[in-house]
């Protein structure tokens, strides 16, 4: 409970301090983060509801991941000078800690709303009102779903405690449980940007205040996964949920589609943060597919994806924040060649991108490996193909990001861009080292997850310190890491001898003899994958967003039609009454009058 109090106090105090709000916010975040680990269960009554708060192993894991990422992002340099940046940030953290610690529906919902509203204010800016409002409407729809679910549960079980719901589950018929999954799932799906409910995400991420987006995508979207885990395995229970084949199947394929389509759309984005937004949607699709397998492999894969995504997406969004801070530009067409100005940021984002692609030495690979193993074990041959296609799209859009921002010939206007602020580099380097650590020691990570896996009712998979092994195959992260270092050293030594470096300026590249000048735009970056875009332009035109807006327009038009009936002046209504009256009389007479 101390965490919630600390976060709340922090948000109040940072509102009033002008200069030092950054340091105070960071101190409060770190203190609350530490306090989170030692929270004691607490029980207090509020208007004959007893609100129960306690730290379960599952919320312990999610708390560590999300709150530590939050303190790293808090450590970064804020792009905006607005006063309410830190207070709102800490307020959303208060909401999150309430969600994680609450053991009852009421405070869970209260925390959920607090988080949504405070993050809405950090997204809303008058440059693009629609993005903010879309986010608010989407999370409102989600919240109503959860509220209806809670009320159904309360009506049936009479108490708002989680334990009461999971104990007398037999009160609910099978059909009602599917409704509940649908209702709660809508709420959690919106937050985790599952495909049909994802339309707020691309614009929402783009408009959010800069370093906050790192936490928004790295931390906030994990609440949706936390919700799903809670719903499917704690409330309904593992064995009971295992019988719901149709829901498992649809959830798995929904996650798979989100993963592939998210990645495929990300390829063609020209805005930095929209590309990373679609990539977050795609990675969350991985997590949801994994948890919907409802096997121990699946849940471990889902938790691993959450952890690795929080790390590398945190780094990438911090890089995006520092690039936007220094250049003020958002789209790839205006950027390029920044590797000369921001070398450290470049190195960090290369490692993050290697993690994003799931290439072995970095942390992304064990997550993807567990997802594949889980899918094979759960006999989903078609879905493995879709997930592998999704990971291939990851190569394309992650290189698009690195090339658009750092490579190519630098425009003269970007000549004197300074390196990213030191705080950004420091926090992203620590996140990168963590990513490397979880890549080389997957066994340790599974150990870290094992209390949560047992709490969810699964057997923990066989693992040693550096290796993971499943009945299908095993992966030795430590060996791969060591071999990478040795081979890397050998290759570097080989490359240091032999020919000397012929230092060449950026305008001395091969241009078939033509002399280039600083101003010649000898740079290929906009429309990077034009040849794919041209062939799939038909497919790319249809988008969920257009679908929703067409529904909205349809409702509006039909409402217009109704206005012709309810014209709003008295005489017409009197006519309606008379007509109805006459109809009744005729009906009565037709039925045989006053027999």
């Amino acid at each position, binding site marked *: 409970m101390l965490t919630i109090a600390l976060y709340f106090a922090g948000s109040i105090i940072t509102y009033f301090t002008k200069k030092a709000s950054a340091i105070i916010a960071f101190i409060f975040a770190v203190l609350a983060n530490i306090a989170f680990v030692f929270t004691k269960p607490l029980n207090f009554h509020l208007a004959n509801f007893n609100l129960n708060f306690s730290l379960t192993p599952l919320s312990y894991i999610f708390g560590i991941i999300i709150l530590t990422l939050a303190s790293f992002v808090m450590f970064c340099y804020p792009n905006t000078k607005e006063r309410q940046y830190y207070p709102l940030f800490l307020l959303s953290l208060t909401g999150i800690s309430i969600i994680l610690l609450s053991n009852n529906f009421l405070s869970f919902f209260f925390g959920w709303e607090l988080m949504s509203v405070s993050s809405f204010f950090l997204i809303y800016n008058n440059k693009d009102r629609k993005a903010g409002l879309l986010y608010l409407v989407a999370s409102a729809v989600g919240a109503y779903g959860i509220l209806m679910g809670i009320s159904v549960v309360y009506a049936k079980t009479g108490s708002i405690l989680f334990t009461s719901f999971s104990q007398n589950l037999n009160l609910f018929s099978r059909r009602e449980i599917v409704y509940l999954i649908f209702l709660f799932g809508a709420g959690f799906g919106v937050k985790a940007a599952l495909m049909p409910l994802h339309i707020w995400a691309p614009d929402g991420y783009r408009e959010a205040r800069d370093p906050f987006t790192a936490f928004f995508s790295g931390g906030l979207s994990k609440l949706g996964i936390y919700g799903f885990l809670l719903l499917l395995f704690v409330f309904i229970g593992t064995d009971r949920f295992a019988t719901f084949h149709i829901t498992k199947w649809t959830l798995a394929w929904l996650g798979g589609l989100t993963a592939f389509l998210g990645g495929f759309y990300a390829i063609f984005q020209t805005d930095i943060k929209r590309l990373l937004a679609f990539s977050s949607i795609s990675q969350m699709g991985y997590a949801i597919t994994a948890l919907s397998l409802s096997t121990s492999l699946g849940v471990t894969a889902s938790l691993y994806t959450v952890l690795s995504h929080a790390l590398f997406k945190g780094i990438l969004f911090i890089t995006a924040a520092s690039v936007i801070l220094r250049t003020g530009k958002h789209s790839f067409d205006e950027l390029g060649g920044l590797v000369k100005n921001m070398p450290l940021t470049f190195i960090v984002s290369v490692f993050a991108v290697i993690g994003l692609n799931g290439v072995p030495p970095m942390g992304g690979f064990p997550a993807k490996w567990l997802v594949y193993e889980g899918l094979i074990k759960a006999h989903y041959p078609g879905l493995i193909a879709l997930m592998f296609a999704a990971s291939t799209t990851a190569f394309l859009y992650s290189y698009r990001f690195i090339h658009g921002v750092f490579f190519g010939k630098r425009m003269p206007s970007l000549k004197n861009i300074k390196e990213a602020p030191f705080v950004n580099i420091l926090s992203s380097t620590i996140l990168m080292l963590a990513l490397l650590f979880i890549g080389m020691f997957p066994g340790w990570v599974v150990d870290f997850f094992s209390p949560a896996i047992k709490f969810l009712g699964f057997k923990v998979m066989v693992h040693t310190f550096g290796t993971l092994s499943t009945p299908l195959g095993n992966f030795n992260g430590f060996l791969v890491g060591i071999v990478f270092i040795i081979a890397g050293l050998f290759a570097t030594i080989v490359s240091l001898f032999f*020919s000397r470096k*012929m230092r060449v300026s950026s305008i*001395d590249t*091969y241009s078939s*003899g*033509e*002399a280039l000048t600083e101003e010649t735009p000898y740079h290929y970056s906009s429309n990077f994958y034009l040849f794919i875009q041209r062939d799939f332009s038909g497919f790319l035109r249809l988008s969920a967003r257009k679908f929703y807006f067409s529904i909205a327009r349809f409702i509006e038009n039909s409402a217009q039609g109704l206005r012709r009936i309810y014209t709003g002046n008295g005489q017409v209504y009197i006519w309606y009454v008379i007509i109805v009256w006459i109809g009744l009389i005729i009906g009565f007479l037709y039925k045989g009058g006053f027999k």
Partner: protein
Amino acid sequence: MSGIGKTSRIKSLWVTYYVTGCGGIELLPVITSRFDAERFGIITSATPRQSDVLVVSGFLTTKTLRRIIRTYEQMPDPKYVVALGACTINGGIYWDSYSTADKLELYIPVDVYIAGCMPRPESIFMGFAHLMAMIKGDKADGWKRYHENYKWYKKNQDKALGNSKKWRVRDV
């Protein structure tokens, strides 16, 4: 120069054919099936960065000569120049034209001249054989000469082509 390094340089010459004038027609049979330069390890390379030999075949108009010099400077050492035809030796039939330079020797160091108004593929192969012999005897040191008396070359280049930032990118 170590033995294996030198033999590999002889056995694998990657060439940038800078076809300026009418020499290009003679180079086609050299590369393709009729005479097949590839059997000696002589293949065309896509960019000057990857090539060792620059073959200049034809008259040197001022416009082309600027590009030839830039391409030559983009090639990594050790690099060799083979000049085909009379136009590169002493101006050929364009000796008195206002737009063509006469002696390639004055602007970039040439290792092998192949005389002829345009030499046939057989003599081009003899030229390459001569180049290989020079490499073996360490006599093909055009690139060293270019570094040592670059000033002289630069003076000639400025006299004929004008020294403007528009074409000279790099002072070697």
